């Protein structure tokens, strides 16, 4: 078993209203930032995962997204897999 660090990015479906993105967009404009737009806000979820291989890690992460992490009706997701650094693995304990 190897340690992997999974990073899941969950973002609102294009076309769906993103009120938070809209609010940030307005706020940045009123702060005087020009040429800013198209703000979309999503979630980033970092997970440490034990798996036999990178493929397996990815498969399980994508399954987690379908089951739990992303709302299939309103959100898209993207998964990135990287070998975890021991430090990160340590952080895990602290979470539980």
């Amino acid at each position, binding site marked *: 078993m190897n340690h992997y660090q999974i990073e899941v990015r969950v973002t*609102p*479906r294009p*076309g*769906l*209203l*993103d*009120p938070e993105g*809209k*609010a940030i967009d*307005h706020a940045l404009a009123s702060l005087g930032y020009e040429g800013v737009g198209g703000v979309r806000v999503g979630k980033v979820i970092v997970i440490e995962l034990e798996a036999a291989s990178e493929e397996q890690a990815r498969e399980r992460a994508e*399954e987690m997204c379908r*089951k*739990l992490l992303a*709302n*299939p*009706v*309103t959100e898209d997701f993207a998964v990135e897999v990287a070998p975890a650094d021991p430090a990160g693995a340590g952080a895990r304990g602290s979470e539980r």
Partner: protein
Amino acid sequence: MTESSTRTVSHPSHPAPEPRPGDPPITPELVADHGISEEEFERILDILGRTPTFTELGIFSAMWSEHCGYKNSKRLLRLLPTEAPWVIQGPGENAGVIDVGDGLAIAFKIESHNHPSAVEPYQGAATGVGGILRDIFTMGARPIAILDSLRFGDLDSGRNRYLFGGVVRGVGDYGNCVGIPNIGGEVFFDRAYDGNPLVNAMALGLMKREDLIRGEASGVGNPMMAVGARTGRDGIHGATFASEELSEDSDEASRPQVQVGDPFTEKLLLEASLELIRSGHIVGIQDMGAAGLTSSASEMAGRAGSGVALEMADVPVREAGMTPYEILLSESQERMLVVAKRGHEEDVRAILARWELEAETVGIVTDHGRFEILENGVPVADIPALPLTDGCPTYEREGVESEVIRELRERDLSTFLTPQGDLTGQFRLLLSSPNIASKRWIYDQYDTTVRTSTVVGPGGDAGVVRLRGTRRGVAATTDCNGRYCYLNPREGAKAAVAEAARNLVCVGALPTAVTNNLNFGNPLKPAIYFQMREAVLGMAEACQLFETPVTGGNVSLYNETDGKAIHPTPVIGMVGVVDDVSTVIGHGFRSEGDAIVLLGETREEIGASEYLYRTEGIVAGTPPTVDLMAERRLQHAVLALVQKGLARSAHDCSEGGLACALAECAVSGTEGGPFGLEVELHERLAPVAHFFGESTGRVIVSCAEDKLDDTLAMARNHGVATRLLGRIGSPGGRFRIKAPQATIDLSVHEVAALYQETIPNLMSEDGKLTRGDDDAVE
């Protein structure tokens, strides 16, 4: 369809709209896909005198959907009583309005968002609340209270927990952000709602009588302005979608139809709309709800008997390249259509700008009585307005009771009636049923005290808000037991009206008017249509007798999953008036030693009870009979007891029967509670019926010892049966109910624990989070 296209054009003076490049041809399949029957299509051809364009087909399919056209319910709804001297606005407007004295009026309405919530519980419920709030403030009233009436399948399923959790969060987040207190509602769990949750949201608004404004497009030449959020591609065809059965693949199929709510924009829109209405710059305003711009514009024209012309290119859109079809049918939230006075456009814009919102002129009121849609000046739709809004064919269907249900009702239940001895175990089982247990887990997520006017919040028999600057208050409740309605729709509907009225008098409010939400299956099935007709007849009879006219409501049909219908659920939302809020009481016991009195008759009735569902897993038998005259006498008696200050607490007896109602009074004890109690029942009734039977027309009151005689006397003078049940015990003492053949005996702390912890335990972290495909990890 060739012959139809050769019909002669009916109004030659106006060039008939041509199909737009890229429009699909109008084939029978396309017509069917739009939920339009052949008969209805014939009607459309006659109205237009030609084949509709794709855009027109979309318009008709939305306006003639069940949701907007009420084609299967209109005739039934005519049976409901709608008039009384205090009714200012009856059915037909965005909300009903009643006079509550002191020059004040209350606008109120209930609305369903069942199908959207089944697909996306959080957004579905949130936008449901948003919609009902807009219905209220478009009347010129400021929303002052929200109630939510919910139904789900049993919570042992992850999917149902997911739906329940998401819906409650959605209801809460939206109302909390806008700043309207939730003052009550109901939730009911039964396998009949598996895959088909019901989410009905009710709102009340307060206004000065003279501020009432209607959704009319009057004044030829007046500009029509789109106000609030921009139009995007969300929720396109939600209206027709809400009129179709759900099937396994709905999650997939319905995705593009999900609408996302923005309560922050709603709050701004609320303030801006009220300012607009007071400003005198507008003559009409209407929410762009189901079927969006199409229904708002055509209904405003229909009501005023005028016409409208709208230019699609002027509608502020969120996305580039939207077609007229999409713009007209989008159900983007937080939008209003306003008819301004000619020349006042800039004033309207200024008010909206102050609230950081947009207002654009998108059309004009005309006198040609047509619903005319242009795209850069080119007509893309041109439909006579009246036939579009009122010409939808309405049907009287055949209604026959289902044999299966008849047999269930007639089933002999005597074997379940008589378990004797210690019934404490069954009592524990009932207390830990989510239908009986405390709903605090729900309303803890709702702001119930914002606006600093909540006298009784969720948890009481009915919610009460005071009307600042007067001694008055308004009370509201929602009620319906779908099992009663399933086994006997007419009696079940009566029972719902009766329970609502009971809940109101228990807090000291006079039942005044009703809004209702008819949630049923597919009306094309005779067994379902039978349920609808019977329920409406029962509701009509009860509302007639109670003098609580129906001022509006909502119909949600096709609540079926894979052909299986929900329990018929005609939710009653009832509003009452409190003359002096300082007399309002709650249902919790107040002090040790007080007498506990039962008003009303307990009969040997266990049919349709929570007890049977919980212990035997069955829904069967005859639901409790409803004696409307007796209910009426009871209402007057309770009202008198509360107003005269004789009763210190009052609580309606409903699901779980006498034992559970007593438990609710004991654990909700305010000062010092939970209180133990000592109750002795003398009648020789079968134990189960005695403790857990759900006979209607019963209220438990408590009163000080020295008020006991007056209390009993006053009840009897109203012709109401009374029983002295016993005394309130010490805080934390025993909870003991003795009957001839059976007893319940346990510590009130255990009662409280079971009552309080059931739903929180079911909704543990993961229960709240998982999407609920129950299958384990493969």
